[in-house]
């Protein structure tokens, strides 16, 4: 699939100061058995940036829900939606392949709140919350149905964070998946969005904070947060299908500025150890950022 070139630094840009960190990530990658790993980092405390295969494209899985969250708040910012605007909860969507209807299987969602509301209505902010915190696919497709993929893509363009993000369809569209039509992301692309959110620059500081609050509610914590010390807060979004496992978020350690970290991984369907690999990379980066300069 031809992809747009991201303007970010080259795939594996090496600054001398990052060399040791890069070597450690390479070692984890080699030992993990993953097909591919990409890691991008921006540390607001030290100014350190790392782009390890940052422009490699991956199937987005549920990390595409972060751009959709941005699209929902863009509509709120424009006054087209209110956080309490109501959306009809209906489990019927049209595939991008010939408009064939499909449903989101209830067993594929981690909680049943949205499925239990079928026939009724839920608020936009409730759907956004479930889309992120428990990765509800039904909530995601409902929001996307109201917003429209084109409007979300337009929002990304207007915010200059469209490179490295390709939103092509809703989730659970199996027909599209079989035809190779999938949402795609790069680690650099997700990093740009999360940096903007963490710096309060998405629409307004207040709206950015609301999106960050939702990301802070994440309930799947086996990736980036798993091996970080107690007291660390992580606003993040995971994504997993048979061949990829991702985590992308903002890490808040006590008494220092946050760092934004995106870890994308690709695997053989039968491979194991995905969450452990993401957690190991996250821990390595944590150690690197919190050690004294002489240790590095």
């Amino acid at each position, binding site marked *: 699939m031809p992809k747009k070139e991201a303007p970010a630094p080259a795939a594996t840009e090496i600054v001398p100061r990052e060399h040791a960190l890069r070597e450690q990530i390479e070692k984890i990658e080699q030992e993990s058995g993953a097909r591919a790993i990409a890691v991008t980092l921006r540390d607001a405390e030290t100014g350190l940036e790392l782009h390890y295969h940052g422009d490699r494209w991956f199937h987005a899985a549920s990390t595409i829900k972060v751009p959709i969250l941005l699209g929902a708040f863009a509509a709120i910012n424009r006054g087209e939606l209110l956080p309490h605007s109501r959306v009809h909860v209906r*489990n*019927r969507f049209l595939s991008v392949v010939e408009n064939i209807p499909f449903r989101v299987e209830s067993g594929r969602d981690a909680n049943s709140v949205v499925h239990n509301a079928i*026939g009724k209505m839920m608020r936009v902010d409730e759907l956004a919350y479930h889309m992120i915190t428990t990765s509800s696919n039904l909530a995601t497709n409902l929001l996307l149905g109201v917003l429209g993929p084109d409007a979300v893509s337009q929002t990304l363009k207007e915010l200059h964070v469209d490179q490295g993000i390709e939103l092509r369809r809703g989730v659970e569209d199996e027909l599209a998946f079989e035809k190779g039509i999938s949402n795609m992301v790069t680690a650099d692309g997700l990093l740009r969005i999360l940096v903007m959110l963490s710096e309060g620059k998405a629409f307004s500081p207040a709206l950015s904070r609301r999106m960050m609050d939702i990301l802070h509610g994440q309930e799947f914590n086996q990736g980036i947060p798993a091996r970080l010390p107690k007291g660390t807060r992580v606003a993040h979004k995971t994504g997993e299908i048979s061949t990829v496992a991702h985590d992308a978020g903002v890490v808040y350690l006590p008494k220092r500025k946050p760092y934004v970290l995106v870890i994308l991984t690709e695997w053989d369907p039968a491979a194991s150890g995905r969450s452990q690999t993401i957690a190991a990379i996250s821990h390595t980066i944590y150690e690197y950022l919190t050690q004294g300069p002489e240790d590095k």
Partner: protein
Amino acid sequence: MSDPARFVETPGVNESPTFPLRVVDGLTLPAEYRKALRPGEEWKDATGFPRQLPRYFYEIPSWDLAMKIELASHFLLWEFIQVDVREAPPLRTFPRYVPCAITLLAVCLERFRDAVGTLVHISANGGYRSPTHRFSKNATPHAWGTAANIYRIGDTYLDNRSAIERFSLIARETLPGIWTRPYGAPTGFAEDHLHLDLGYVLSVPRDVKN
């Protein structure tokens, strides 16, 4: 259910002593409402046949009142006016307007409820919705207030052929002249609810003189 609200007299020229809602001529409403409701205008159905939209509406001053007004023994007004963000913005806030034929639909649904012997749930966007609702592509009886999408009856979700066809048959046997959408995925069919309607019925209350 007996609630005082049902007998409250509200100001208005066309009021009924037993029904608290004022009848309004849609053509006298402010421009933003006329644009959304298109009172009395022609609107083509899916076959290209022109249908005349309702001109007379009940005015609903508040959600609180909609929660209290019985249109039939087991159906309150609010159940027929649940719309989401796809409805035209002026029609998402109160006062709201609903075609006078909504009372006929409620009576039919009450009879249907008697036949099925349990609760009948109308879905969001499944009662009255205006011709400018984003779901309204061609003339649909929903914009006449004479159609209902039912997603659940008792504990049965109508999201499969068996349930939809079973209750569709009951509706057609119980309500002479009712139309139900056949089960299926293409446009014109329904696979996740039971659609039933009375057609493009216009209701003109007796008080209306012009």
